[in-house]
């Protein structure tokens, strides 16, 4: 067991988490879960930001991920409100049935 891991491992972890987010986005049918997958992806990105910040010894990466977090919060608020509305109108959370764009 090594004492330390290289920074790239953090990045790979970030990629894996991001991939999981994408997978959730693609395979899940529940809107809420899809939405959470997005959060997962954002988190994965945040991890890379902070990792790079460590590498460069600069705090700016933290600031970026801070902003990401803020945007995520705003997005969650609006997104969940939208989900509420969709549910009220269609009585379903299944993403396949929300396809009015098609026609």
């Amino acid at each position, binding site marked *: 067991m090594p004492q330390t891991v290289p920074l790239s491992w953090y990045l790979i*972890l970030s990629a*894996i988490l991001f991939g999981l987010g994408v997978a959730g986005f693609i*395979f899940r049918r529940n809107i*809420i879960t899809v939405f959470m997958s997005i959060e997962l992806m954002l988190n994965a990105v945040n991890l890379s930001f902070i990792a790079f910040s460590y590498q460069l010894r600069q705090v700016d990466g933290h600031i970026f991920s801070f902003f990401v977090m*803020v*945007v995520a919060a*705003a997005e969650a*608020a609006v997104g969940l409100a939208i989900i509420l509305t969709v549910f009220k109108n269609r009585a379903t959370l299944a993403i396949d049935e929300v396809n009015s764009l098609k026609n």
Partner: protein
Amino acid sequence: MDAFLFFLFAAIAVACGINLVVQTHPISSALSLIGVMGALAVLYLLLGAEFMAAAQMIVYAGAIMVLFVFVIMLLNAGAETRKSRATFAKLLGVPALIGFLMTVSFLIQALLPRTEPVKFGAFTGGTAQAIGKKLFTEYLLPFEVTSVLILIAILGAVVLARKEI
């Protein structure tokens, strides 16, 4: 120790992430997501981002995820029924995903070979003080703009959640 902590929490994060994807009930997914976030917070700490770790726990795991859980309960959302029509998406998605992971890993390995080993305490710039300084000097305008963004988000949420729509 650094490596151990990394492997432990990385494993937790990945496991929770997988659980998020495979669970059919949204409440399980939400709990898994909280797990991911907690694990990530520890990793942030390892990378010297103490403020971000705290924010991650408070804002993400605390506030946002509560919102999620709250909505799930409000809608009384049950487990997914196994009837996906998007076979096409899966056909396309699985290879795309695998390709993605492979490419990214390859790129990270190939293009970033000289990454230094991560040692706890090697970078201490992530304190609340340092971030505050940055935020209120260099990033003051974006910071203020985010406040507007959040205000708009609140208004949007209020408008969307009104009864008439």
